[in-house]
């Protein structure tokens, strides 16, 4: 699905990421881990073709990328309802269809609300549904759950898992929420300007993460505990 070879990004003469190579198969959920400033967002933007880079980024044919950015220059003050956002920008006039996309992030109840009435977490849910409405087959998530309360976060990950399986989506995701994401990731990439470790979650040892984050961290599953 995706082949990245010797990918490097320099901004104003500073290496943001250097010689990054990895492959992603169709239907895989890949988690990108790393400390602040490791180049995680830059890597996502580079594979999405949003910034110039050196090296090779090769996607399979027919790929449609949906990108959920971390920080958004959101104009929340516009008198606009959630429904209008979908109908005007995506051209989806059918209310049931809008509701279907909103249900992906458990946001159906927000359909008739004004954007300016929504909390940060609610907006994030709308944003995820908004990107899903572009019908992507690849999702790039840059800390998608930032700002969503823990209970909601758990629910969205469960939904994400469901959507990914049902639609056969391929996902590249930056997240710090190791324990939650562990359950849905097929592959973990540890990044700190260069790739520090790569493999299935069970192959990633705690010592590798300690090296990556420089502290006492662990990657562990917490089974059950569904909300």
């Amino acid at each position: 699905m995706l082949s990245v070879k010797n990918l490097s990004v320099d901004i104003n003469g500073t290496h943001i990421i250097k010689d990054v190579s990895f492959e992603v198969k169709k239907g895989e959920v890949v988690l990108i881990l790393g400390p602040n400033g490791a180049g995680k967002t830059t890597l996502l933007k580079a594979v999405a073709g949003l910034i110039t880079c050196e090296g090779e980024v090769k996607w399979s044919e027919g790929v449609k990328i949906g990108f959920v950015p971390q920080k958004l220059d959101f104009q929340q003050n516009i008198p606009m309802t959630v429904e209008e956002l979908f109908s005007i920008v995506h051209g989806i006039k059918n209310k049931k269809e809008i509701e279907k996309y909103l249900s992906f992030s458990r946001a159906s109840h927000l359909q008739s609300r004004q954007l300016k009435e929504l909390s940060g977490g609610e907006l994030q849910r709308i944003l995820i549904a908004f990107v899903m409405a572009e019908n992507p087959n690849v999702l790039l998530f840059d800390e998608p759950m930032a700002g969503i309360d823990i209970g909601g976060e758990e629910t969205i990950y469960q939904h994400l898992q469901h959507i990914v399986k049902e639609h056969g989506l391929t996902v590249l995701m930056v997240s710090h929420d190791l324990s939650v994401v562990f359950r849905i990731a097929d592959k973990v990439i540890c990044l700190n300007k260069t790739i520090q470790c790569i493999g299935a979650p069970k192959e990633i040892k705690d010592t590798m993460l300690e090296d990556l984050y420089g502290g006492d961290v662990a990657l562990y599953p917490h089974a059950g505990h569904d909300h």
Partner: protein
Amino acid sequence: MEAINTYSIIIGVLGGALISFFGVFVINRRLALAADAYSHIALPGVAVAILAGIDPTLGALAALTIGSFVIHAIQQKTNLYTDTLIGVIFSLSLAIGLLILPESQLESALLGDLTTITRADFLLGIGLTVVLLLLIIKMFRRFTFITFSEQLAQVSGVKTGAVNLLFLLGLAAAVSLGIKVTGTLLVGSLLIIPASAAQMIARNFKSLFSLATLYGVLSVVAGIALSALLHFPPGPMIILSEGLFFCVSFLAKK
């Protein structure tokens, strides 16, 4: 003062409606003051047109179009924001305009005069209206998208650089049309006041555009009527009518 003719009323109403409609995008992209400054880029074009004896609207349109391309070109090569570049180009344009414009023509260029609209002005105004209307219809979705979030539009594959250039060219058409109604000095108010008055009380996007357009049309009609009644120039009377609707919205806001 000459009497208002049919041409003036048609151009005034069309201009009031379309410019107020476009103003919704302007204020929500936080370009209200920048758009006001941007309108002054027209001045050197107006000055050259007056000296050459051609329609000042054509001069304004030429100056604003060139200004838009210059702003866009510099923006692509630097990290400067649109409003900053408008500030630079507007100051330079104003200086050039004031230097070349004969003093006797300054008042008419700055304040405009809806009472002096000729058949040629009228046809040019209709042409600008059609261009602006087509642009809004064609680009409405993308203008809404970049207004909502330019970053999200970019990651969704919208060519934001090209859309921003078209937005500036739309602004050029709107301002050129508005200069006939209120003059260079006051044209920014047509973009800002009806849209902001509507924004205070609109419950959704559709009502926002409808109300802004309605305020724009009513302000022009009321301004022309007051001008005829009180024998004041129409431009300032139109702006004062907009101010009245702004107060109405403010008082109606719960």
